[in-house]
């Protein structure tokens, strides 16, 4: 029986692909698969795009795409199924996407993100929509020789190069790629066009090893995940930190949307006509108030501070507890975009640098601070101090009781460093 040229001739799991052959190889892929790769567009942005023809677009292997390729597995807005009602009752039209795909040039953080999705969507009752797309997608990972500005995948143990999980992994060795085969279907893909590859020599293997070492030495950020998780487990994070993060969060949802592992989604119906409709799902974020609010209005995570706390506990501690690995892959995308610095990078830094207990500011200073902030007048302060002498209450409580200032103002003035006993009334009650 005649075989396709070269098919099955891969002698080893470590190969070399010369860069001059890359486009030819990718062109072959487009014949049997939908090829997705990072593309730098004319506006200067790099995004994962479907590549109809490799000759028409510039594949960008320098810049990491703005978002991870998670939308190719779970689009931001997805129709789960359509339904229609007629005389005989309801009928459903299930959507199915079984397009075979190759994602080329995704980075270790993003591959790890997909592996985390695998855990979620395969666990227990399976998510057909995700798994249908995932089953037929081959991941060609490109290790990172040069970590980006906010990258900390090494600390998150998810990069810069992977040791498992990829179908194929590439390492840039200048004029050539070092190619590693991780899973059988990766081998199958390469075997189809084995003439583009030659077995790696010891020199290639050494060069790859050096590239890995060099890259690992280039990280600007080193974070101690274990120490951070330890702090969370032992409740060692100063409550003032959560308050402060809650204050800074502007509720855009961006951290969840850009995160390669954030998978939470919302489901809802979208009517199309009187008799027809669709059930959709969209990306959701646990930092939104409506995420946990019950129909009657009760919300177990009413405050922004609680929701942010939940987010970090979930990603670092709960997922570690459940899956033995935190669901942060260290891509630093949240750090790229969160101007409030409520991102993973800033957070781990913050809690690891935090002193065990910060001394409470003296009450004498509270008056000054409020005065300075224009929240109270000198008259108010004098009268509060006078009354305080009689009641013996803390100045803050006294001011609140006099009605000249409220809890929030005090918290604001002090960056929520102070907690005044007896004033923590919740207006929601």
């Amino acid at each position: 029986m005649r075989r396709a040229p070269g098919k099955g001739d891969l002698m080893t799991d470590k190969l070399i692909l010369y860069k001059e052959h890359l486009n030819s190889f990718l062109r072959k892929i487009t014949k049997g698969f939908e090829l997705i790769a990072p593309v730098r567009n004319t506006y200067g942005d790099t995004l994962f795009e479907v590549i109809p023809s490799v000759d028409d677009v510039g594949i960008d292997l320098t810049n990491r795409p703005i978002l991870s390729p998670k939308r190719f597995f779970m689009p931001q807005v997805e129709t789960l199924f359509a339904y229609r009602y007629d005389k005989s009752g309801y009928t459903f039209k299930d959507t199915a996407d079984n397009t075979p795909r190759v994602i080329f040039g995704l980075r270790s953080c993003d591959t790890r993100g997909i592996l985390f999705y695998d855990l979620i969507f395969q666990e227990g009752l399976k998510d057909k929509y995700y798994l249908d797309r995932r089953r037929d997608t081959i991941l060609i990972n490109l290790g990172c020789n040069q970590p980006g500005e906010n990258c900390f995948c090494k600390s998150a143990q998810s990069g810069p190069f992977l040791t498992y999980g990829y179908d194929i992994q590439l390492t840039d060795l200048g004029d050539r790629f070092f190619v590693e085969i991780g899973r059988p279907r990766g081998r199958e893909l390469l075997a189809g066009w084995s003439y583009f590859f030659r077995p790696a020599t010891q020199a290639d293997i050494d060069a790859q090893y050096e590239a890995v070492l060099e890259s690992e030495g280039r990280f600007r950020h080193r974070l101690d995940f274990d120490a951070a998780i330890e702090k969370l487990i032992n409740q060692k994070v100063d409550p003032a930190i959560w308050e402060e993060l809650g204050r800074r969060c502007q509720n855009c949802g961006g951290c969840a949307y850009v995160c390669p592992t954030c998978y939470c989604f919302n489901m809802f119906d979208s009517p199309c006509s009187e008799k027809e409709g669709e059930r959709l799902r969209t990306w959701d974020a646990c930092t939104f108030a409506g995420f946990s609010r019950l129909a009657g209005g009760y919300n177990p995570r009413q405050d922004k501070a609680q929701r942010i706390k939940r987010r970090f506990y979930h990603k670092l501690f709960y997922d570690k507890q459940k899956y033995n690995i935190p669901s942060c892959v260290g891509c630093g995308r949240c750090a790229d975009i969160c101007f409030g610095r409520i991102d993973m990078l800033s957070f781990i830094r913050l809690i690891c640098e935090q002193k065990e207990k910060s001394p409470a500011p003296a009450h004498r200073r509270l008056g000054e601070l409020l005065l300075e902030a224009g929240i109270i007048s000198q008259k108010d302060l004098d009268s509060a101090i006078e009354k305080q002498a009689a009641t013996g209450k803390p100045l803050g409580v006294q001011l609140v009781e006099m009605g000249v200032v409220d809890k929030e103002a005090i918290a604001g003035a002090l960056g929520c460093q102070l907690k005044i006993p007896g004033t923590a009334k919740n207006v929601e009650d």
Partner: protein
Amino acid sequence: MHSVLTTCPFCACGCGLYLHVENERIVGVTPSKKHPISRGNLCVKGWNSIEHVRHAERLREPLIRKNGKLFRTGWDQALKRVSLELLKIKKKYGGESIGILSSAKCTNEENYLLMKLGRAVLKTNNIDHCARLCHSPSVLGLTNAFGSGAMTNSISELAGAEVILVTGSNTTEQHPQIARFIFEALDKGAKLIVIDPRRIELSRFAHIHLRPRLGTDVIWLNGMMKIILDEGLLDDSFIKMRTENFPEFRKFLSRFDLGQVEAISGISLEDLGRAAKIYAGAKRAIIIYSMGITQHVSGTDNVESIANLAMMTGHVEQEITGVFPLRGQNNVQGACDMGALPGMLSGYQRVDDPAVLDKFSRAWNTGLPAAPGLSSVDMLHETGRIKGMFIMGENSMLSHPDMKNVRASMEHLDFLAVADIFLTETAEVADVILPAAAFAEKDGTVTSTERRIQRMRKAIPPVHLSKPDWQIIIELARRMGYPMDYESPAEVMEEIALLTPIYGGVYYDRLETIQGLQWPCPDRNHPGTTYLHKKSFARGKGLFSCIAYRPPDETPDKKYPFALTTGRVYEHWHTGTMTRRISILKRECPEGFIEISPADARALGIINGEPVKVISPRGEVTTRARLVEGLPGKTLFMPFHFREAPANALTNHAVDPQARIPELKICAVRLEKVT
């Protein structure tokens, strides 16, 4: 799946975002990273800006009213009806009896074409749009003072500011992406002064938060300037070189009695003095303001006072210093630029300037009306004057004050046509409703608050039978006997560029960059302008105006003891037509409410979440009470997004005599518990 770069359809921050398209459906959004404003992120509205496009309630085909009921019809019949009815009214009563509302949600090209249709074909200058309700005082006041009504500088300059004074702008909620630059400045050590009656999110980060009583802005502004004068903190050389009428203004200020400041505004002189010193003492200081300043009967006064303040301290005419009126809608700047204004053609060229009129009549090959037209407030609040209206993409029924009055005017019209994407409250009373294409379904340009002209790009075809507004206008013009021959919005822009000096160099091929072009851009080789008034004001010298305080039109009394102020929330956009059809946004803020201070609530026995009836001299609304700390006593706040609890059923339509903006920011109401 492919990606199409476009501009966010909500606010005037003008974020660049990619729409991901699969099988003619939008399945996701990615913020542009290279875009100077979005920088890789969006606000919650931007991230969720797509669901409404395919919503089931999108208008599917033209609707026509017969015997009080709406019926489906074809385009041909609907367009015929609109053109015949409007021409009939024109013939019977004259063009001045026709009113046109253009839209800050539509593209520049659509605004230009609609104002052309109005002026060249229907012979009316009664053309206006929602800028009337937001920044008409800025257009007027800043033009008087500086010669240009637009934001003087670029958004990103905020990050480098030394001092930022924010007044009457809830920036984190209404312009979240601009707020991010404020936070950046704060991180670098900038000082923030917030002057706002409510304790807004930003005030928690402010070094000084002053809380004037509603509608007392001229008082604190004059007070602040008097202190600056007394303390000798003014920029003498700037005043001398760059401005005029200062001696008069100095005389005016010296007569100003500082004693009244605290009594009227509630701000202590001590606090005001600290703010004055910080602002005047800075090398580079920026004033951000928005509707809290403009939506008053003294709106223009307020704006001119802000201009006075900026000029006397030399905080204008340079980079990283200036006056930032934050525009609301994604294209409210552009709609103004395009001359969707009763007194101006595109590029703020006055209709009563014979040379301008001559230029346009020759270009358009027809005679044009010379007298400035009516504002939207005058069209919608003076029953009987206008006989027929064409409204493109505006929901005036919910956005204008005094809803009952607006409804009466609309119902009194002989003919009303509305083009929109949903059956809005305004469309519900129309005689003909034309289904328009949504932002993702058409090409065009929009101009953001920083004068940035950017592309809106078609990602999917219009749903059902809907059409882009520009095509609708062309169709109407043709049927009215004035053929408009444009193949594309790009071709419309070529005409705009020829006739509009500030857009003189704006061509579609030049907009194929991530940052677009900032006007003024007078010719093809001009790189655009990041900040205005460099070395000289647009009008030559900056003009100081002496502004006396004028109290609000309606203040609380015994019968209506509360002052109601209105505004918006982070998750929703204006009358909620789009955002209330987007699942995440709807969930985040499902229904309307009225904010009340816990003390006032206690006094009335109102519990958080309880329904209350709000009654003003003009109407009543039932909504839920939300107890919030940080509201001044006897002051209530209500967002105007919610049709079930429309704040504008209560508001007052008394207007600023110059800018004709209604006083949406204060009216008197009383509260009743619903038992």
